């Protein structure tokens, strides 16, 4: 065990992370994300942003090689299966399950320790209230606007009680006016709950509002093919 893990330090530590594909190093990153703060990673498409997120969340494809460690609240989760990492993800699209109602989507995320149906239902209802969507529980997710869907997706992620958040350009599908609104909500909730957040974006405004350090990935286009 490394000295860092023994400190039982809160937050998300990316220790000497390096990702390679076919012998070529895509990115190298060594960073600590304190609870309630945001680390923004910026880079062109193809710069390895998504493989970084895949590595942290536990989805890295077998053809990629990765070294380094991911330490979450003092525990090394590098080899832990995605299901047990407690790292919540938001993707470019809200990815609400189309065959479930809004409330079913939220209840899917609630841990099974909460057994009573009524308890689960009221947790889902509270979550909707928190993002100003009271009474939307029985609706078809496909009938919601983009901004509403993203807010439901955020609450779904949070209901699973994650210890860290990964945001993969979750605002990119929203139009300018909603964007600021939803973004504000996400960051303030993350701060309230003291969650370390890793934001991947290529929007400068996103990075500015996030307020934390910004890490730039080099574009592979400069390298010879």
């Amino acid at each position: 065990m490394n000295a860092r893990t023994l400190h039982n330090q809160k937050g998300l530590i990316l220790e000497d992370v390096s990702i390679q594909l076919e012998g070529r190093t895509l990115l190298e990153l060594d960073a600590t994300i304190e609870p309630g703060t945001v680390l923004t990673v910026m880079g062109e498409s193809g710069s390895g942003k998504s493989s970084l997120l895949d590595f942290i969340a536990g989805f890295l494809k077998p053809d990629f090689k990765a070294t380094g460690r991911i330490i979450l609240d003092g525990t090394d989760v590098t080899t832990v299966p995605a299901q047990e990492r407690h790292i919540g993800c938001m993707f470019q699209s809200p990815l609400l399950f189309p065959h479930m109602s809004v409330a079913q989507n939220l209840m899917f995320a609630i841990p099974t320790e909460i057994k009573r149906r009524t308890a689960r239902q009221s947790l889902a209802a509270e979550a909707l209230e928190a993002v100003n969507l009271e009474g939307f529980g029985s609706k078809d997710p496909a009938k919601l606007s983009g901004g509403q869907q993203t807010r439901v997706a955020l609450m779904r992620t949070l209901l699973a009680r994650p210890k860290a958040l990964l945001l993969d350009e979750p605002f990119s599908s929203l139009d300018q006016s909603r964007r600021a609104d939803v973004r504000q909500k996400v960051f303030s909730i993350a701060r309230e709950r003291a969650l370390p957040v890793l934001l991947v974006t290529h929007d400068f405004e996103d990075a500015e509002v996030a307020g934390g350090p910004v890490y730039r990935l080099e574009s592979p286009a400069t390298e010879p093919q």
Partner: protein
Amino acid sequence: MAKFRPSSNLPSLIVVFLLAGPVLAGLAGTVLPAFGYLPVLGARELTLAPFAELFSMPGLLQSTALSFWTGLVASLVSLAIVLCFAAAWSGTQTFQRVSRFLSPLLSVPHAAAAIGLAFLIAPSGFLARLLSPWATGWARPPDLLLINDPYGVAMTLGLVAKEVPFLFLMTLAALNRPEIKSHTKVATSLGYGRMSGFFKVILPQIYPLIRLPMLAVIAYSTSVVDVAVILGPTTPAPLAARLVVWMNDPDLSLRLAASAGALLQLGISAGAILVYLLFEASVTKLSSTRLARGHRMKSDGAGRMAVLATMVFIVSAMCLSLLVLMIWSLAKSWWYPAPLPQNWSLSVLSMALMQTPQIFGTTILLGILAALISTSLTLWLLETKTNAGEQVDHRLRTLIFVPLLLPQIAFLFGLKMLFLMIGLDGSFTAVLLAHLVFVLPYAFLALSDPWQRLDPRYARVAATMGASRARIFFKVQLPMLTRPVLVTLAVALAVSVGQYLPTLIIGAGRVVTVTTESVALASGGNRQITAVYAFLQLLIPFAGFAVAAAIPAVLFKNRTAMRLDA
């Protein structure tokens, strides 16, 4: 290395065992008797005598030529019609309308289609009745060989009617990709006519997806038995049909010659495929120089109409055949040349169901079990592969299609010997296993694309919320794929119901389905009872597809994104 979940090869192994097992054992069981080794009959000496006996059969050359040419011509004509139709009309409303007719026709078993066609075009058939006696002057059925003609024209027509819907659906699936649509637009905006744009831009891209189904069509058509028995020539019959007769001959020594014949059949189908591949290569070579010459062939209106007319002709012939089947199965008396029955009755239909409920029951039970097993196995295989972050690799994919690329008869004889040895011959289990060999490839074909298209991020999002692999599968992936899974079950059911040769040979007369029964009855004289069984062959798959369409409509009434067009 963060591996998402452990990988497992168990489902691949089961699939390989279920497919390669019967095929390899079956081929071995065909090759050995063909060279004189069949200990059950006391034949233990390796010899070429079975081949000598085979080649001394009267009319063997003619049978061989018939199998080769009817199969190859039917396949080429079907492909030409389908490609020309797609070229001329894809992306139009007409195309969509015709697709709506063609898709259900795919589920019609070969035997039922052939019987319907026979009832339509025979001298005493529906068409002759419509035109008689006022136009033809026929007061009684004329003595014309409209079906069972010596050149196999009726048989070829029957095969075309069945293979066109199949190849059409394969083409439709290939066309259904977003980049294809934009390429059509590019070709049109560069001034290319619809058909030349299709053949120069679209076909080269989609052909790899149509190729394997086309080879399967050739293998099937050159070795078909049920269509040959119903519509084909009789003196002599195409090879495969004669082999079945020899196999069932009381003179057991004929089995050796039949096995040798099965190898000859393998050669015929392989030869036809080879000829096709040569044809394909020369077309590719010829067209490569023409591709970039810039001929746009803008005025292709006449050609397009001709193609449409051909397609409408085939679709109407099929629909009319099925209608005639329905009329016959409800007819009490229908004397020539009345265009419609004099008396209608449900009695034959109910009699068939009451007197032989086990035939109907066996058909449905076999179909449902084959559908459930093949669909579950396919899902298990796909889920395991996705989970391990792998694709279903090329070798496994090819293996899954092998049973469709071999003439059925070439390994069914051997498989029968194997089942005889282990005492399973004529049992329900053996027939089910034989059906699975042919049903599994179609289940895989129907399901792998929808599975591949399912956005993998849904599973990931569920995993980040702590959902287990089983929960992701049963609560996210399976419900999202409700529609394709149900369609796959319906396809698998239809394929199982349509199986004639495996049921006949492995069932050994003890496992009888509506399909084997209808073909057996077709050579007899009773049209009503033949029509009833052929009609039941239609009814079961149609019911399956109707249920497959109804369930999601009810289940996802309020889920916009789960609708068909979403």
